[in-house]
């Protein structure tokens, strides 16, 4: 049906491009489930601590190791009798913030490197892409732990370290996308119009790669949350008393047989957040890919 109809393609397929993307996303069940879950988790983390009767730092020695649903401790308490729910929500703020901030930073680094590498090709592009590849050669978790061991482990540092070790995927996606867009006639047209490199890169090329960048960014949040949990679990990440889902797990290890909920509940939180972001990412990818509903 290549020649089927020019008008059909222009008028109906593309006119509704934006809303069609949205419709495809809305029809994606898993993505919507993910979105609902993330919004739920987000709201709980922001509002939760105010609604609960206990502050996360309140120590209630008498109520140590209360299992979930004891009195007002809906998720139970830890070894110092601190309310687990309050701690979980506060930790969620930290973990989500680290995830989102790391995503923004790594997407920014990845996009700029990918854009420059893809646009200039030749020497600059080759050097930048080889650099990207060499970063990918290191197992990320070791890179992360090494850096974390040398630097002061606070939320800001952890965010920075995660971003610095996870921009490569975005860079590769962007550079591949740019390399194919670069050959399109509208870029040649811009060159003939006398446009500067900066104009072509940021005004002509970048807006056309937004779709894949958003997908990669969403998946990066999931990865960043997981990485923060790893590092904090191993004790090199966010340090107590500031809670994070990772260091809550670390702390829970020693009480695994007496108070398993201390490990299970943060574990569920991490899993839920990570899978939700992954579902959203998959949904976005399908929604942005117009081929997915072609016949």
């Amino acid at each position, binding site marked *: 049906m290549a020649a089927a109809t*020019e*008008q059909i393609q*222009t*008028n109906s397929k*593309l*006119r509704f*491009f934006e809303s069609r993307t949205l419709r495809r996303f809305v029809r994606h069940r898993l993505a919507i489930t993910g979105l609902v879950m993330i919004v739920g988790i987000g709201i709980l983390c922001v509002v939760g601590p105010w609604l609960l009767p206990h502050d996360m730092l309140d120590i209630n020695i008498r109520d140590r190791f209360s299992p979930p649903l004891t009195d007002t401790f809906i998720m139970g308490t830890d070894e110092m009798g601190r309310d687990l729910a309050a701690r979980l929500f506060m930790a969620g703020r930290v973990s989500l913030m680290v995830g989102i901030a790391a995503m923004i930073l790594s997407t920014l680094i990845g996009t700029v490197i990918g854009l420059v590498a893809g646009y200039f090709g030749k020497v600059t592009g080759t050097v930048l892409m080889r650099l990207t590849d060499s970063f990918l050669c290191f197992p990320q978790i070791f890179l992360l732990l090494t850096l974390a061991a040398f630097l002061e482990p606070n939320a800001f540092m952890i965010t920075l370290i995660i971003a610095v070790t996870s921009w490569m995927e975005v860079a590769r996606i962007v550079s591949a996308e740019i390399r194919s867009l670069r050959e*399109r*006639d*509208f870029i*040649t*047209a*811009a*060159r*003939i*119009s*006398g*446009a*500067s490199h900066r*104009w072509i890169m940021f005004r*002509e090329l970048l*807006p*056309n790669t937004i779709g894949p960048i958003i997908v990669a960014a969403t998946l990066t949040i999931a990865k960043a949350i997981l990485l923060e949990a790893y590092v904090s679990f191993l004790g090199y990440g966010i340090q107590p008393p500031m809670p994070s889902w990772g260091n809550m797990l670390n702390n829970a290890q020693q009480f695994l047989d007496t108070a398993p909920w201390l490990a299970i509940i943060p574990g569920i939180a991490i899993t839920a957040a990570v899978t939700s972001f992954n579902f959203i990412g998959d949904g976005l990818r399908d929604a942005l890919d117009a081929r997915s509903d072609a016949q």
Partner: protein
Amino acid sequence: MSEKALIETRDLKQHFPLRKGLFGGKSQVVKAVDGISIEIPRRSVLGLVGESGSGKSTFGQAVMGLTKPTAGSMTFDGIDMATASSAELRGLKRRMQMVFQDPFSSLNPRMSVAETLGVPLRFHEPQLNGAQRKDRAAEMLERVGLPGQYVDRFPHEFSGGQRQRIGIARALMVHPDFIMADEVVSALDVSVQAQVLNLFGRLQRDLELTMLFITHDLAVVGHVSDFVAVMYLGRVVEIAPTRELFSSPKHPYTEALLSAAPTPQTKNRRQRIVLKGDIPSPLNPPSGCPFRTRCPYALEECAHSTPELREFASGHKAACIRDDLSLASATQQQKEPA
């Protein structure tokens, strides 16, 4: 042709090295454009016709300065592009604009018409503000036959023919003297093609444009051009004023092209010359005359040396060693079959 030509190329060559194998090895060279010398007089249209692999688009890109020629020179209004200062070059580039083949990929899908048409102004007339650029865009849109209020629309809201008009408008935004049109109607439907060709003709006359019109379609080239050059395997094999070329072709390839062009007539059909085989690969062109492998009139000598263009009549040159051929013209009719 007393005035100096606006565009002049001298023995222009564009070779592309092809690396063979993973570790270099012997590299081959594709001679996409292999020594082209043409002149385009001011205010006239040179049609460049050829099949795929003839190098016609590569030549067009070299003329536009999009690629750096391997050898030879390209002069615009007396200034050699290779030695021009960057300030001179900037001025020249404003005067040379281009219209593309594919109306879909030649417009940025994320930019409104006003933005797309504003790009050349931003860089060549930076004193204009946004509102002025938009006014100019709307004005130009009307000039190419679209309502001025369409400036706020996006490319996907237009049909192929309308997009092609927008492409033409973009090329005209900075008042160029020269337009290179590369297969600008081949992606369009017949009825729309006529609209766009008429627009080109009108704009060329009104704005006194000089044009290089590249196409594979002989009938189209015959309609728009003052002169026609026929390319085959990176070389011009014949160049002549349009009427002359169509009525008395001197190169066998031109004859074959004319005869193969389909015409919607059932009676008095022209004699059809069906060539053997395909265009040879530019990686491995035949020795001597590049056309000899498919030429029905080839002689043994044709393999010996590459024929140069030589004058058959005033302004009519062809690269064929044979003088004795009487080739069929576009209008020659078939003899009644016995």
